[in-house]
């Protein structure tokens, strides 16, 4: 990496640490530290909500998906705008008027202490592990693509985040989120400009998109209904709706963002930022991946995008076979380039018959390129024993460091840092809040001074931060565990939403109904997850339905009247 790029990354880190540390005003009491004294404007909270959700995995993973599969992943977000409207009408006013610090605190006001403790504990386990993943995923990729030391990369992302989150509290998190999402969007737009300029040396933008479209990458919508398919219009709209309701309505890392808004109205408006902008933003990120695919039609991409694995093959007994495959791959890429240019030229001339024939030739050439890559992956699996190999997450970082100009490489690396830091800062802040408010202040030390709780809160932020960094360093050896952790989240998200449906949606529900409903909901989702091949987006629907039905049946068998809803 050029010294200018290093300087840009360094400047970004200094700027964010400085900006975060100066945001300590009003954080000398626990309400200021965790909720900014409920004083923040809707637009800052709204951008913070988006920044917390948009992690570095979104940038490298989603562009990789755009490169490999096209735009179809955008369907995952179709339920989000409707979820935001529902949450803005329901949980936002409930949480604000209940004057709670955490979503789980509301569950005790409405039900009982054990339901609160169970929900808070589930959140702590899931978020503690996912926070490590959020830091580790970009650190692993950057360390491999750029040859950086993994521990140093984790430290460069994690330690500044811990520092400003620990001392600045939620104000530091929110105001740095605002800057960080601006850096992310600037980086993505810069990448799009570089791609468009690079592609336009060979074909026009319209022809480029037609070439992507010929391979199916411009197809965003799939109306086919099948519970096993992960990304369809239906799974995204219905399953995604419940997932987004769970994530934005019951996950403290998001709830805490809009609890900082200065009024119910501003809390509602903050959610509308994501409602308006999330799908277009995700479409832009996916389109960037699609443009990387078109870009590599006219440049020779690496046969495998993970250089560490490639080196392992070169040192193995399969080195000769891999070398032969590289030669064949280069020949196939060259033939595909010629076919792509011919297809674009025929379309440009308006010659429909020739354009069709040329497009078929292009698709055949593309299939040969894909076959060569599949053979390379087969060799890699033999050489390394890694049967789960995928290099889709390395595509965009490889493009950034090999094809973007000096200066913009630094901006893009800073954007990946910004995405990882903003997502992990929100999580660290919410982990500390739940640990202190729902566990420590509720069960361990119930009558200490505000100053004592503030000190414990800062310590909790630091401890969770260091824990996340340690998980991030060791996660490199826990590949399949990361997947388990991610799947584990979808096992309880829908069930947690079911408890909040009981709490806010019904007056008859009781603590016993909510607690056992939550347990039964998670068991039901576990049975569906392990016993069927239904896509995980539908788990949330199963969880909500089982918790609500079981909770209501048990509540109606209770003689005691349900407690009055706290509003």
């Amino acid at each position, binding site marked *: 990496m050029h010294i200018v790029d290093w300087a840009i990354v360094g400047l970004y880190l200094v700027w964010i640490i400085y900006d975060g540390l100066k945001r300590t005003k009003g954080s000398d009491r626990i309400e200021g530290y965790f909720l900014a004294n409920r004083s923040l404007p809707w637009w800052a909270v709204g951008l913070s909500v988006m920044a917390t959700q948009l992690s570095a995995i979104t940038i490298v993973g989603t562009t990789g998906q755009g490169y490999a599969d096209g*735009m179809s992943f*955008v369907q995952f977000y*179709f339920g989000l*705008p*409707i979820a*935001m*409207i529902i949450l*803005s009408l329901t949980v936002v006013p409930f949480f604000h008027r209940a004057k709670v610090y955490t979503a789980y605190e509301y569950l005790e006001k409405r039900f009982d202490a054990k339901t609160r403790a169970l929900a808070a504990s589930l959140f702590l386990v899931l978020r503690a592990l996912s926070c490590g993943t959020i830091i580790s995923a970009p650190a692993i990729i950057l360390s491999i693509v750029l040859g950086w030391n993994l521990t140093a990369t984790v430290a460069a992302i994690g330690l500044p985040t811990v520092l400003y989150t620990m001392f600045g509290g939620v104000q530091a998190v929110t105001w740095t989120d605002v800057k960080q999402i601006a850096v992310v969007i600037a980086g993505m737009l810069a990448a799009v400009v570089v791609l468009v300029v690079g592609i336009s040396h060979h074909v026009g933008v319209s022809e480029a*998109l*037609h070439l*992507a*479209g*010929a391979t*199916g990458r*411009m*197809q*965003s*919508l799939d109306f086919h209904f099948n519970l096993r398919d992960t990304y369809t219009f239906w799974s995204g709209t219905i399953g995604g709706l419940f997932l987004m309701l769970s994530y934005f309505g019951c996950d403290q890392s998001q709830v805490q963002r809009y609890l900082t808004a200065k009024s119910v*109205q501003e809390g*509602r*408006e903050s959610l*509308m930022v994501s*409602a*308006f902008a999330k*799908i*277009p933003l995700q*479409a832009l990120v996916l389109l960037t991946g699609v443009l990387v695919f078109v870009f590599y039609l006219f440049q020779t991409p690496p046969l495998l995008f993970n250089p560490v694995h490639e080196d392992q093959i070169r040192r193995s007994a399969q080195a000769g076979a891999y070398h032969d495959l590289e030669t064949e791959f280069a020949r196939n890429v060259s033939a595909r380039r010629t076919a792509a240019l011919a297809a674009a030229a025929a379309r440009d001339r308006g010659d429909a018959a020739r354009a069709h024939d040329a497009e078929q030739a292009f698709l055949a050439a593309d299939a040969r390129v894909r076959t060569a890559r599949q053979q390379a992956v087969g060799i890699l699996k033999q050489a390394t024993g890694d049967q789960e190999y995928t290099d889709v997450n390395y595509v965009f970082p490889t493009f950034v460091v090999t094809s973007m100009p000096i200066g913009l490489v630094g901006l893009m690396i800073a954007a990946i840092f910004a995405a990882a830091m903003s997502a992990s800062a929100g999580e660290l802040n919410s982990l500390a809040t739940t640990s202190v408010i729902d566990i420590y202040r509720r069960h361990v030390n119930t009558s200490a001074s505000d100053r004592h709780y503030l000190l414990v809160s800062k310590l909790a932020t630091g401890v969770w931060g260091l824990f996340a960094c340690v998980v991030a360093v060791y996660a490199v050896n826990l590949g399949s565990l990361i997947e388990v952790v991610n799947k584990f989240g979808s096992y309880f998200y829908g069930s947690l939403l079911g408890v909040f449906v009981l709490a806010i949606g019904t007056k008859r529900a009781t603590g016993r109904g909510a607690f056992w409903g939550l347990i039964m909901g998670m068991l039901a989702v576990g049975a569906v997850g392990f016993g069927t091949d239904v896509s995980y987006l539908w788990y949330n629907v199963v969880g909500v339905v089982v918790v609500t039905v079981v909770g209501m049946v048990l509540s109606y068998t209770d003689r005691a009247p349900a407690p009055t809803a706290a509003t």
Partner: protein
Amino acid sequence: MSDGRATRDGDASMTRTYVLVVLLEILVLLGLWLAGRYFGI
């Protein structure tokens, strides 16, 4: 009274925002579908 009016004004403004969100989502979905049709052929 003024608080009540502010709440009603806020509710009316939020209702307009919700309608806009739904309309924008329909437009974006339509745009994505049309892009798939146009560039996919």
